[in-house]
């Protein structure tokens, strides 16, 4: 059996890559994809502890995380379509209506 630490290191790496994507990219679609990466890193961690403690509770929580990811993708992509219709851009730097 692979130690739980290995999975957690993998989850940390995936989380850091997702954070870099959210902070550096300008395309809103790729920012949303980076959020999916972060949620997958969380799922790997939950699954590692679920396997270590021989309990299915972690897997149930991972299902809720996936549900959240689906809801977030639906709302986020709806927002992007509404934004593109009004401002003709998917660039995060140009979305500054609330800035003054």
């Amino acid at each position, binding site marked *: 059996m692979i130690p739980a630490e290995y999975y957690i290191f993998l989850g940390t790496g995936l989380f850091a890559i997702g954070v870099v994507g959210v902070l550096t990219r300008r395309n809103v679609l790729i920012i949303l994809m980076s959020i999916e990466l972060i949620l997958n890193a969380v799922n790997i961690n939950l699954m590692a502890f679920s396997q270590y403690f021989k309990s*299915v509770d972690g897997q149930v929580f991972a299902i809720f995380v996936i549900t959240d990811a689906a809801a977030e993708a639906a709302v986020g992509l709806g927002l992007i379509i509404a934004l*593109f219709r009004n401002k003709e851009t998917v660039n995060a730097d140009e979305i500054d209506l609330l800035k003054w």
Partner: protein
Amino acid sequence: MVELITFITLSVVTLVSAILVITRRNAVHSAIWLIVTLFTVGGIFLLQHAEFLFAVQIILYVGGIMVLFLFVVMLVDIDVALKQARFARQWLVALATSILLLAIVGYALYNHGQGLNLPARPMTSAPVQNTQAVGMALYQNYMLPVEIASVLLLVAMVGAVIMAKRKLQ
């Protein structure tokens, strides 16, 4: 040994394709690399004996969410995004912050070579039939959260439809 080799292969493919997701210029390429990442994360779930989550990952993430993503990528104008700069001005600060985050979490996990100091594993054997165990947990212990999640999905669906509608009456 075979398990470890499988784990290392899957991890390397996951991390490399995740880096490719956030560095490609074309959003369609990013989406396709994200599909590769999700597939390998599904493989890691299989390695962790979570067969039900593996199926959910493939059907829901790769089959559902990623198709939605590709649709939207093709709906919005990608030609303009191709000509613009990929990274924001603060990319160096962001990269340094993330590497610092990774270093701090890695140091905390390493913990002077002691690892996580997890409590001892319970002696009970893991449930053999994973899907059955997850189903029992979902519909017995976690019944109220399942209902709340269904309400959340309903709200998200209504919100997405209203947001994407052309004009509100």
